[in-house]
């Protein structure tokens, strides 16, 4: 981890202030990662066990209710659950974060955004590990079970490159929204309850357990107001080759993502100066 930090410092010629910011963010992230599994006997194994069990339970239940016409419903679920869990867990953990860290916020001067960003980065770390394992399993399946040739494998891996923009968009959206909700939650503690409820409903408004083509096509554009629709579909495309249902509407998702990113930082910048007054 420090290696990444040092590499970035050397490559980007960071100033003293910037490299302190980076070090601080990294040490906070490390704290998040370490503290989470400190007393769990299975430790880091939970990163994989958790989504696997979730997928099996959901896959078992929803197979009877949701007639999704995809080759492998379990894989479909897993590909959508990974980004969704990252998003939902980050958002629900970040929203009350400034409030929970009030001891620190009230007593020391440090870049406040690191509290939220470190939670998201530690979740990203877990998310990437699970994703790499999934990709590895997929490639092994194509290679040894389906007997892909080199050429077919390369085109398969080429499509997986779409994971990179998908992860980036997911990250940008999560950071923007989390900064927004966590900053507001300092003054209005109701925000935390609203977020908890919203995330629950949001899950069903995102095509994770179903695919959009199950719904009447008149409704499709509405779903693109939810940026998670585009992001999850991008994951489905990269991992399974399923098409984006309405490619021409993807700009709506992008617009919302970048607008919320801007809004989140703006609200944070305005509110963070006075966090001390409200905690």
């Amino acid at each position, binding site marked *: 981890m*420090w290696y990444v930090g040092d590499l970035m410092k050397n490559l980007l010629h960071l100033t*003293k202030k910037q*490299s*302190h910011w980076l*070090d*601080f963010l990294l*040490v*906070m992230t*490390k*704290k998040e990662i*370490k*503290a989470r599994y*400190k*007393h769990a006997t299975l430790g880091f194994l939970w990163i994989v066990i958790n989504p696997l069990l979730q997928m099996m339970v959901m896959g078992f239940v929803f197979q009877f209710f949701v007639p999704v016409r995809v080759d492998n419903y379990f894989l479909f679920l897993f590909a959508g659950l990974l980004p969704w869990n990252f998003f939902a867990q980050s958002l629900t953990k970040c929203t009350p974060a400034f409030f929970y860290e009030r*001891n*620190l916020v*009230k*007593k*020391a*001067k*440090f870049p406040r955004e690191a509290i939220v960003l470190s939670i998201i980065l530690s979740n990203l770390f877990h998310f990437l590990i699970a994703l790499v394992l999934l990709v590895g399993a997929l490639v092994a399946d194509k290679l040894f079970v389906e007997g892909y040739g080199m050429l077919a494998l390369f085109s398969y891996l080429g499509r997986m490159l779409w994971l990179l923009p998908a992860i980036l968009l997911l990250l940008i959206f999560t950071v923007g929204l989390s900064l927004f909700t966590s900053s507001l939650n300092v*003054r*209005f*503690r*109701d*925000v935390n309850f609203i977020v908890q409820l919203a995330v629950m409903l949001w899950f069903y408004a995102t095509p994770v357990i179903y695919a959009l083509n199950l719904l009447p096509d008149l409704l499709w554009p509405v779903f693109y107001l939810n940026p998670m629709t585009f992001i999850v579909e991008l994951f489905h495309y990269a991992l399974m080759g399923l098409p984006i249902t309405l490619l021409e509407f993807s700009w709506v998702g992008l617009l919302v993502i970048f607008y919320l990113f801007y809004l989140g930082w703006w609200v944070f910048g305005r509110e963070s*100066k*006075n966090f*001390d*007054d*409200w905690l």
Partner: protein
Amino acid sequence: MTTLKEEIIRKSKNLGEVVINLKGVGKKYIVHHEKPTLAEDVGRVLRFQPREEYWALQDVNLQIRKGEKVGFHGPNGAGKTTLLKIIAGISAPTTGKVKTKGRIISLIDLEAGFHPDLTGQENIFLNGLVIGMSREETKAKFAQIVDFAGIGDFITAPLYTYSSGMKLRLGFSVAVHAEPDILLLDEVMNMGDEKFRKKSEKTIQDMIENETTVLMVSQWRDFLKKNCNKLIELENLSSNNT
């Protein structure tokens, strides 16, 4: 109005540049009687009630030069802690401008940056970065910090196994090894056992005697008179204005 009455106790020999400069600084708090919720705010707006406001500081002008030792004295609620928080950059002033130069360390709460599940070693790095040290700096002073705190082999044990005195010692040790340009002391601190108290008092005394700028808040006038060259009496005349 907040009034500042300055009293020079002894002339400092060679005053340096201005390191803390406050111009027309004011701090307004919004009084809320319960925890702030959206419902309370909406209710207030619907009933056309104005926010209840409170100025903890008003129009404070203050210049402190490098190497000065300044003591703040005044009744509860005069805004002493608010003033220190604004200088430390923890809280932003509502009006006016604050300019500071150099690294500011406040010995307000020494354990703020600690996490109970991390080891003492990990916590030193975490706390060092919280108070503004770089990772390289912390690494270079690591041995000194551990030695000064005197917690021995516990340094590799998680913090929740520490006694409260050990935590305090570790926090203090990190803070003083950050070599602050400006040191903020709020009230007289409780510093663990006899031996460590003497050691920490000596360290603070050393800082007071060398060219570190020191700001201290205390109710104890004699303590301030003994250690400071300037005493500032703070008084908040308009304690409540809605």
